[in-house]
């Protein structure tokens, strides 16, 4: 019985040490494990603006504009605190839309515009039929109206 | 809704059928492999028993 308990203690201590070590490593790596930077992080200078990096956030409503004659699209990416203008030439994924999440890979230019060479759509974790979504949307709008009135 | 409309999955046919197809395929392969492995194993042990009984 004694030996068994000793082995169990040993395993638990080893697992705790392993967990602690992993926690410390992950803590040290911190933001480096993040796939993208938010507009706030970019403006605060946390993103490597001299190199290619990924910018993630929500496409601001009514900000998507297409340049005439070519495939260039410009839009604003926001995290509801700060926002950054983005320009992209190419085909956008199916789920790319205003009010939706997206992640762009590219570089900041001298004018503070993010020149993207790849745009990915990030979707949310909510799933529902279109009727329900429409009803929720209408409910939200009614609520907004009643609070502004 | 016709069959081809349903099969088209609103344009996502490749992705939906590619996912469900691979899932079902993997499970079937696992089950068949287990079945074959079990038969081979039983035969091997039976052969071993025959050999030892003959000793």
């Amino acid at each position: 019985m004694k030996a068994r308990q000793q082995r169990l203690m040993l395993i638990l201590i080893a697992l705790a040490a392993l967990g602690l070590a992993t926690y410390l490593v992950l803590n040290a790596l911190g933001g480096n494990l993040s796939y993208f930077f938010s507009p706030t992080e970019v403006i605060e200078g946390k993103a490597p603006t001299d190199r290619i990096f990924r910018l993630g956030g929500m496409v601001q409503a009514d900000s998507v504009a297409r340049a005439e004659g070519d495939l260039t699209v410009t839009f604003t990416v926001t995290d509801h605190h700060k926002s950054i203008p983005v320009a992209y030439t190419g085909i956008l994924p199916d789920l790319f839309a205003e009010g939706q999440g997206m992640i762009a890979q590219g570089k900041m230019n001298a004018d503070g515009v993010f020149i993207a060479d790849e745009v990915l759509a990030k979707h949310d974790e909510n799933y529902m039929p279109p009727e329900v979504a429409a009803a929720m949307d209408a409910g939200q709008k009614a609520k907004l109206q009643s609070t502004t009135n | 809704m016709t069959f081809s409309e349903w099969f088209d999955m609103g344009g996502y046919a490749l992705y939906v059928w590619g996912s469900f197809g691979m899932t079902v395929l993997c499970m079937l392969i696992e089950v068949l492999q287990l079945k074959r492995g079990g038969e081979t194993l039983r035969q091997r042990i039976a052969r071993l028993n025959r050999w030892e009984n003959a000793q």
Partner: protein
Amino acid sequence: MPSNIFQFSSPATFYPLAGRLVPWFSVIAIILIAVGLYMSFFVAPTDYKQGEGYRIIFVHVPAAWMSMLIYLVMAGWSIVGLVFNARLSAMMAQALAPTGAMFTFVALWTGAFWGKPMWGTWWVWDARITSELILLFLYLGYIALIGSIDDRRRGDRAGAILLLVGVVNIPIIYFSVEWWNTLHQGSTIKMNAQTIMDETMLVTMLIMACGFWAYSIAVALIRVRQIILQREHHASWVREIIGDQA
């Protein structure tokens, strides 16, 4: 020591018990997966944003859950094996490994087939997807490790230690979408917030998950019986069961 529960830790006792359980779990798995597939395609409604493409969720999420759950169960058996020196625990872990690896592969594959149309890419190296790939390597590494050590006791112990070291990866996979910015969306079924998912969709996903769960148990029980036969083929009870005709 052979009193009540410990009796079942003897391979000779467990072999027939597992054999009796297999048909039950097989039938449950077949029924649940059949119902789940029917609901996936004919009952669950279209999604408001992802159209019909979201239906991949019905195999992707249950497969991803199983990939993590099976690993945790294997790690649990490893602790039991190391503490009690029970041979059967290592066999249980060994029997689960191929199924866990299979579900991990399925989760990655279906994820890629979802990512391509929805995100615009088959693969990204974000924290969620990368840690799930590491899980696949852990499974394959475990299978290779125990296969390469001839001494069974040493092989079992080495496998158990590998499983326990790798267990830190499971919370990393699970919480990656909360700890870091990832392309992968957050968990739909949250522990501390409301789930926003249509009820029919949710039920379909849960039925499929239960089906995969029953499938895993059935397959693992069949495999553990084979492992028992293989390891104990010299024992007299195995000889009696198999006989010399085949």
